[in-house]
């Protein structure tokens, strides 16, 4: 009994440590964003003068509002394209027997881990020649380099768990393979598709290397790049409050997605790690 109790205390302590360590830096950012510019560096956890000044400030700057629009638009388009293309490929990988599918999965996996900076030079060069530099397609295309393989990989693990027999049953009832896909499998696959969409979107939302290399102005600059280049009061001071407020704004949707879809995201991230 006392051993059990001690174990319970141990795990409870671990729980508290995880919660504190995970949330302290985020809490620090939120508090920074609520401080007045004069007190931003006072080092206190709780602001002495609460203010929403920083938030009003960033939403009055087109640098930030344009970046927010770019991040959302580019992220949604890249993710949609990647998930659309990946869904048919992942279906084939999960359901059909054909040579080379292990190769496709292995290559997809390696491409997602490819150093993105290795692609930046030629893209920068080519984009400037053909007018894609600093445009939405100019970021969407490079985002596909990691979004598409990631989508293929995560989706095929989800598709593998769908019951095979239903598709065969539909085919016996006279459905073509294509009908079996759209009428039977697609609805079953919808949760996996949604999860893949979230995971891929988070990765696009997170990109920094392509965003600072292939954009120059409000026309296509995404939030991570915009935050890193926020204009300060002078060349030598960083606008801490503005950066903190912008960081909080881009973190809120991420937090909501994670809290709402925690179980599915965990499943999506881990399913592929252990091959049966």
């Amino acid at each position, binding site marked *: 009994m006392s051993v059990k109790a001690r174990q319970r205390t141990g795990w409870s302590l671990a729980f508290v440590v995880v919660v504190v360590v*995970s*949330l302290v830096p985020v809490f620090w950012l939120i508090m920074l964003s609520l401080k007045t510019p004069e007190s*931003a560096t006072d080092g206190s956890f709780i602001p002495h003068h609460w203010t929403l000044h920083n938030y009003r400030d960033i939403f009055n700057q087109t640098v930030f509002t344009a970046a927010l629009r770019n991040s959302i638009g580019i992220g949604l388009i890249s993710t949609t394209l990647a998930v659309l293309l990946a869904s048919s490929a992942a279906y084939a990988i999960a359901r059909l027997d054909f040579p080379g599918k292990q190769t496709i999965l292995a290559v997809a996996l390696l491409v997602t881990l*490819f150093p993105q*900076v290795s692609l*930046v030079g030629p893209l920068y060069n080519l984009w400037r020649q053909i007018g894609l530099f600093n445009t939405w397609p100019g970021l969407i295309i490079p985002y596909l*380099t990691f979004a598409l393989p990631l989508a293929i990989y995560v989706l095929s693990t989800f598709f593998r768990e769908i019951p095979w027999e239903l598709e065969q049953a539909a085919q016996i009832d006279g459905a073509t393979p294509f009908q079996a896909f759209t009428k039977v499998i697609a609805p079953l696959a919808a949760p996996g598709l949604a999860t893949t969409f979230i995971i891929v979107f988070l990765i696009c939302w997170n990109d*920094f290397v392509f965003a600072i290399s292939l954009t120059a102005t409000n026309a296509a600059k995404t939030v991570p790049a915009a935050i890193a280049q926020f204009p300060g009061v002078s060349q030598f001071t960083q606008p801490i409050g503005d950066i903190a407020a912008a960081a909080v704004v881009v973190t809120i949707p991420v*937090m909501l997605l994670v809290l709402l879809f925690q179980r599915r995201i965990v499943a999506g*991230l881990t399913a592929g790690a252990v091959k049966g």
Partner: protein
Amino acid sequence: MTGDSIAAPAAAEATATGPGRKRRLSDRTRAERRLAFYLVAPAVIVMIAVTAYPIIDTIILSLQRASLDKPGQNAFIGLDNYGYVFKAHLFWMDLIHTAVITVISVTIEFALGMLLALAMHRVIFLRGLLRSIALVPYAIVAVVAAYAWQYSWSLDDGGWIPRLLGITGDPLSHQFGTYVAIIMTEVWKNTPYMALLLLAGLSLVPDELLEAAKIDGASTWQRFIKITVPLMKPAILVALLFRTLDAFRIFDVIYIFSEGANNTASLSQLSYSTLLERLNLGLGSAVSVVLFLCVGLIAFVFIKGFGAAANPATEAH
């Protein structure tokens, strides 16, 4: 063209004459492969188009004298760029920075990730909440994570860490402090992902086996080392491989912290600054190719190790 491709299946069926059973099977197999091809082709074509073109172009550029501030002077110079890279002190320094950050952060992430995975596996109350909160660092934008930690570390910005530790000098003004801050950010951000990959492995360890060992008198540590670790070896190797490759390309966190100042620049930083700040496409591409080859080498070593280590694990059954 269109007529050909429609007629082709019919012709194939007509010519395929063999023993009845075998022919039926191969027809089905062939139809399945054809469908698979049509389903896979669009994704594979797009993947090759968006990835292979820049990779091949990087390799070609790395063999040329190509600088954007000297247009029209491009020329093939063989492996000269590589010779220059390997002779440059800066390259070796940045390779060492990258290796140090990668090895230390992945090691710490592995140790903490294992503890977190065990906690997620064992904790029964509020398990969903624990997982959600642990996912926050993973899901947060890397640039945001970097700023959160930078403001926590920076003495000038009133950070809480120097005051907590009683440090008087700015930790971010020298190499050691910057290293610690960068590694801590990496560890904070990536430990949850490591833990999730390990958690997937933990769930494969049967409880009965651990229970039996406990009855036989094995201590907690013995059970962990002799049963849990061998059984989850594949998951461990996958987790280490993913995180090592990801850590080796580190860019955003260092960019925010120091832009590579205080001798903490990574290979990705070197490649970026050579390409886009010095506009030397040839040299920068050579660095990119070397970075790419390093990643390939790491993957190769891991996969070799993976194959070798996975076999004894299955034999142990």
